[in-house]
């Protein structure tokens, strides 16, 4: 827990303060990523894109951004 009492999350291996209620959709907007070109892994499981707006991040969450690739 930090001084604000909100705790930290990890995004792509880097610690990031969780300053208040935030969803997966909110996180993508905050870091400037278009949700249509990524998948989001939260605590070792993919979050369905349909649940980005409803998935509230919790202190201690570990998130990884998986980039949508389609080369062969």
């Amino acid at each position, binding site marked *: 827990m930090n001084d604000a009492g909100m705790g930290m999350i990890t995004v792509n291996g880097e610690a990031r303060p969780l300053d208040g209620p935030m969803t997966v959709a909110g996180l993508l907007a905050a870091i400037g990523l278009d949700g*249509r070109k990524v998948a989001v892994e939260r605590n070792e499981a993919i979050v369905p894109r349909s649940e980005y707006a409803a998935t509230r991040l919790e202190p201690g969450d570990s998130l990884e951004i998986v980039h949508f690739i*389609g*080369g062969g």
Partner: protein
Amino acid sequence: MWLLPQGALLVRGAGGYDGGMNLDFSEDEISRYSRHILLREVGGVGQAQLREARVLLVGAGGLGSPLLMYLAAAGVGTIGLVDDDVVDLSNLQRQIAHTTGSLGTPKVESAIERAHAINPLVRIAPHRTRLGVENILEVFAEYDIVCDGTDNFPTRFLISDACVLAKKTLVSAAVLRFDGQLSTFKPHAGEGCPCYRCLYPAPPPDGLVPTCSEAGVLGAVTGVMGTLQATEVLKEILGIGESMSGRVLVWDALSARFRTIKLRPDPACIACGPNATLKDLSGHGDTAGPACAI
């Protein structure tokens, strides 16, 4: 060559087998596949399962090259290869089924010649065509497992939707730059088994995600991912180990890190969800966009 008597091989591999499959092997086959047959998880029955398997590879490029060569070498009895392109010099940095001598020839011909040089015992059907709404289900009907090694999003979504509709197992891999991703999709196999759209619901808008021809790809990365794809196909045929269904393997070659991430079905998935709206392929337009040299 270390040869075991044929009878011993068949008896050893026959545990739990309930009959119906041709278990006769020629001396050449026993010798050729001896390192497989020695594996308890394969054995004679497994090798016969490989011989009866029918696998379609879409794309004879960076992923398709090692995939085809390993499946043919493994004795997968019927392989289909889809590609409408010809071999270009810029392909040869990674598409190792083709050779400098095959420049300008159809990729299906070039790759099949290479695979048959490895193993003439397997049947490999060329499909020198581009899959589209009008032909994809007809082509898929001849096969049980489909492998995606294509390099454009419209075709990837068409393949996925056709697999969901036709209940075909899809072993899918993708590469770009130094990255690889792999999963197996078989929503027909039961609850908990997602499809490609559960991972990526729709193609990215044009221009948002580059192709290999725009962003590059390390050749060896396609070799690793195509070989992993071949491994997962063999596991699916043999029914051994843990399927990649419900998991995505993500590889970052630069950091040399593999991660395996859980993937559950998206309840809102339009293709395989409980309220799926996908009933046919009519939502797919013309996929014959510019061919990326896969």
